Each structure stands twice: as C-alpha cells, then as structure tokens.
C-alpha cells in the first residue's frame, strides 16, 4: 500500500488522536524556576550567585583544611622532624628532598615553612596533600552537585551567545570548568566540541588562561587578597584572545542543540562516584607530576640552570613585564610546577601590582608538563600551534598588563 503525503498526515492524525492525551499544561514552580535560570535577564544574576556560592564554599573548605590543620601539621611537625632526621644537611640530596635552605652570614639556615623549603618531601607533599587535595575534593564535589541538579546545561545555554564570540559554543563551559580543577581532563573534554577549529581554540585558551585547582589552591593560600584581580585579568584575556583566535583560525564554529533537563534532586551515590573517580584520576595523573616536578625543579636549581636562565632572561622580565629580577627563576620553574612557582613568588618582596602581574604570567606562561603531555596526545600540530599562540600571548598580554600598571601609576 502506497500513501500520498495527505494520506500520511491523516494517518498520523488518527494515530495521535488514539495515543496522545491533549490538555492544557500547567507550569509547575520547578518549570518556572528552570525557565528563569535560562533567560539572560534573570539567568545571569543566578549564574553570578551560583559562581559566588561555588568560590565561597571552595575558599572556606580549602582554607579550613589547609590553614586550619595542614599548615600546622607540615610546618610545626613534619618539616622540623624531617630537617632533623634526614641525613646530609646542606648537601644536594637533602636540598632536593627536604630543604634548599638559605645562606645567612655565611652559614646554612633551614627554612621555617614548607612553602619555602622546596623539597620533594616537604613542599611537594605539602602542596599535593595539604593544599591541592582539599581544593580538588571540594571543587569536584561542587561541580558534581551542579551537574546532578541540572544546572550545567542551563549555564551552557546562558553562555552560548558569549562563547560564540570566541568561536565556541555553550558546551565549551564543560572543559573550561573542568580545567579549573585540572587542565588534563579539561584537554580531554575538548573532544565534545565538534570542529578542529573549536577544539584548537578551546585547548589553547584553557592551556593559557585557566588556572588549575592546584594553582588556585596555592593562590588562595598565599595571595588571597589579589585573587580577584588575577582572575579578572585571566577572564579578560580568555575572551580577548579567544575573539582574536576566532577571527584568524580557519574553520567552522557550528551552533549546538541541547536538551535542558528539569531540575532534579541530586543522588548521593552519583555524586560520590563522580567525585571519587575524578579525585582518583587526579591522584594518578597529577600527584606524581607534583612530586616529580618538585624534584626536577630542585635538581635544576642545584645545577644552577634556573639561576642561569633567570639571569639571562632577567632584562625581559624587568623591562618588559615590570616584575623584579628575582621572579625570573620561579617563572622559569613554572613550566614544571605552576603551584610551586606561585609559592616561590610569594616569598619575593614586590608591590601588589607586580605580584598580580607575576602570578598572571605564571598562569599564562606555559601549560604544566601533565597538560603538555595531554595536548601532545591530542595532536602535535595542534600543540605546536597552541605554543606559538602562547608565546605571542605571553609577550603581548604580559607587556599590556605592565603598560596598564604604568598608566594607572601602580606598576
């Protein structure tokens, strides 16, 4: 039997009359709230509140464990104990594993806290367990809550228009936010974007402008008052350079279609699985890099490589970026551990604006080794392209921040 178009529609009508119940749909309160969180006029204030809650809980939780307990545990008990029992004080192995110390009046002096000792067993463990772990746990817990409640798709819809300006679409918020925990899963999550252009832009932006949880944790600990300004500079850079990349990178940036689910009560088992899996992943991928990075930085310091590079590049750092000569070493070491580099910067005397510039430079300077390896896995051409963009961004944006400081009279 062959039906023409009209007959097909008649058949569809008959079937739907028998199977579908028609009636007026009355919006529930949940529906109405769901709509409010998607419409820009009401959705943006809600997004601002959600982000406020996210960072406030993040800061309180991480501060509770790090400042409340881990700082004391590591500085008052672990560091002095290790300094005493580890053999070979002042020798290179002692410097790499426990404490690089310092020289005062010709005598070797031990560090007073784990942020200044730069040993694998002291700074490395303190950063990994005392600073990063609480930050990562609360970050992924909050993220899992937002996902399970059903807020993330709404945030994607809300930010879709803005993200189209940088060649991305609403779903780009997923790798962006994941990268705030760790850049490694963020790079993997770029695969949800459809075109090569989108993936390249996303990977480049997150490698440059998104600080990872380890870095945010340490910033929260050592420069809490300046965090707002540092993040502001990074957000501005994300959009400005994203806009430029969108204009110069060939390729398509298609629209996206998303099914926005209703708000749901989060399930504890779901959240537990998500947080557990992500924290485990972080432990496997990132923690070895923290410790290894710390060891390599220690070796390079002992061999005088970082000192040499720092001295060689000092004119660029002082003249172009407007930061003190001493920051050259930490900025070089940032390739291996950005979090440790921020900790090193905190020990250098400089103005608040120089500190903002230096920490922004650490963030945009180079992806950490783990992210670097992950980007290489996604394709060497993309990696080289991203690094080329990165080099340009570091010099132009670093110089621009210095220029802004000069114009404002604070640099």
């Amino acid at each position, binding site marked *: 039997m062959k039906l023409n178009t009209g007959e097909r529609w008649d058949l569809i009508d008959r079937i739907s009359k028998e199977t579908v119940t028609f009636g007026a749909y*009355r919006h529930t309160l949940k529906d*109405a709230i769901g709509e409010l969180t998607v419409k820009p006029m*009401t959705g943006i*204030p809600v997004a601002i509140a959600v982000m*406020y809650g996210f960072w*406030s809980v993040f800061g*309180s*939780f991480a501060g509770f464990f790090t400042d409340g307990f881990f700082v004391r545990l590591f*500085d*008052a008990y672990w560091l002095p104990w290790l300094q005493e029992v580890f053999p070979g004080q002042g020798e290179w192995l002692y410097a790499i594993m426990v404490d690089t110390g310092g020289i005062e009046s010709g005598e070797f002096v031990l560090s007073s806290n784990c942020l200044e000792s730069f040993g694998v067993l002291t700074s490395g463990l303190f950063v990994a367990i005392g600073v990063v772990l609480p930050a990562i746990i609360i970050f992924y817990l909050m993220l899992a809550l937002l996902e399970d409640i059903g807020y993330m798709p709404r945030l994607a819809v809300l930010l879709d228009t803005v993200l189209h300006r940088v060649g991305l679409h609403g779903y780009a918020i997923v790798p962006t936010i994941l990268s705030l925990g760790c850049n490694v899963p963020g790079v993997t999550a770029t695969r949800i974007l459809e075109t090569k252009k989108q993936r390249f832009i996303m990977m480049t932006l997150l490698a440059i402008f998104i600080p990872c949880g380890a870095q945010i944790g340490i910033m929260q600990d050592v420069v809490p008052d300046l965090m707002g300004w540092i993040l502001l500079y990074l957000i501005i850079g994300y959009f400005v350079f994203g806009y430029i990349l969108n204009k110069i990178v060939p390729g398509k940036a298609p629209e996206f279609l998303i099914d926005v689910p209703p708000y749901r009560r989060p399930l504890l088992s779901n959240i537990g699985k998500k947080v557990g899996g992500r924290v485990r992943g972080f432990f496997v991928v990132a923690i070895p890099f923290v410790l290894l990075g710390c060891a390599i930085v220690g070796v390079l310091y002992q061999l005088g490589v970082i000192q040499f590079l720092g001295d060689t590049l000092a004119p660029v750092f002082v003249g172009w970026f407007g930061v003190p000569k001493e920051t050259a070493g930490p900025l070089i070491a940032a390739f291996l551990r950005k979090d440790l580099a921020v900790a090193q910067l905190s020990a250098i005397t400089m103005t608040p604006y120089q500190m903002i510039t230096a920490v922004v430079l650490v963030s945009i300077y180079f992806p950490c080794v783990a992210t670097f390896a992950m980007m290489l896995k996604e394709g060497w051409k993309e990696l080289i392209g991203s690094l080329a963009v990165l080099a340009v961004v570091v010099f132009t944006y670093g110089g621009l921040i210095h220029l802004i400081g000069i114009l404002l009279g604070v640099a």
Partner: protein
Amino acid sequence: MAEQSAGGAIYFAILGIVTTAFGLADLLVTASGSEFAYGGILEIPGDIFRGGWGGIILLFAGIFYLSGIRNFDDIHQFAKVVMASILIWVVAGCDIFAMITESIPSSSEETGPWFNTLPDFIAAYAPPYAPAVLLLPFSLVVIYYIRKRASGEEGSGNSS
C-alpha cells in the same frame, strides 16, 4: 486566598525594599574600602568578595522580590520571589559555612591546640552578622507560600 496573596505581596515588597537597600549598602561600603557596623548586630564587610560580589547578589535578590510581587499568584511571578529567596540563601549559607569553618580550628599559631576552645567556638557565632544572614529568617517565609501553593494545586487536582 486573595487576601493571603495580597498579604504575601506586601510582605515581599517590604522584604524586597530592605534587601535592595542592603545590597546597595554592601556595594557602597565596599566602594569606600572600609567596614560598616551598626548596633552590634549588623556588619557589612568591606572586601570585594563578600561585600562587592555578595552585595550585587543581594541587590539582584531585592529586584527579583520587587518584580515578582505584581500578580503574585502567577507562577512565573511567584518563581521570581522564590528565586530571590534562593539568592539570599546562597549568600547567607556561604556566610554561615565560613563561620563554621573558621570556628573549629584553633586560631593560635604553630604548636598550640588543634581545635578552638568552647568559648571561642561559641563566640564565633555571636553577632554582628552580615546583611544576608539577617535577611535569612525573613526570606524563609517563602517556604510557607510554596507549601500553600502546592497544597492548593493538589486540592484543585491540577498538579500538572
């Protein structure tokens, strides 16, 4: 029912005005770079995060209350009032969570006790409070209206 709705509209109108005023005060105090305290019960933080960012959210909450009170029975309008309360709960919840996390560990440096003493722990919850915390109990009234609306819908058999 209509009288009760009118009562709700008036209540949330007043709450909206107070919330808007608190939001503006938060922003002004933050802009001035100092803290503000009043009567030993109210303290407006002057930092950019709690005062500035939090103040913006309170301001939005106030605007949501005021825009939601017209045609209060309409579900979309009522949703704005509920959303305003949720915004206050977010800010107040964060303030209270910060109080809890700050009250537990000892404030003494180095090798002192790990946990706070009981008097210091209790003192951490004493006033003055931030504006959102003061607004919190008043914003909870919205739960009564949510329940009333839900029971009304069940009664009319139209729970969608």
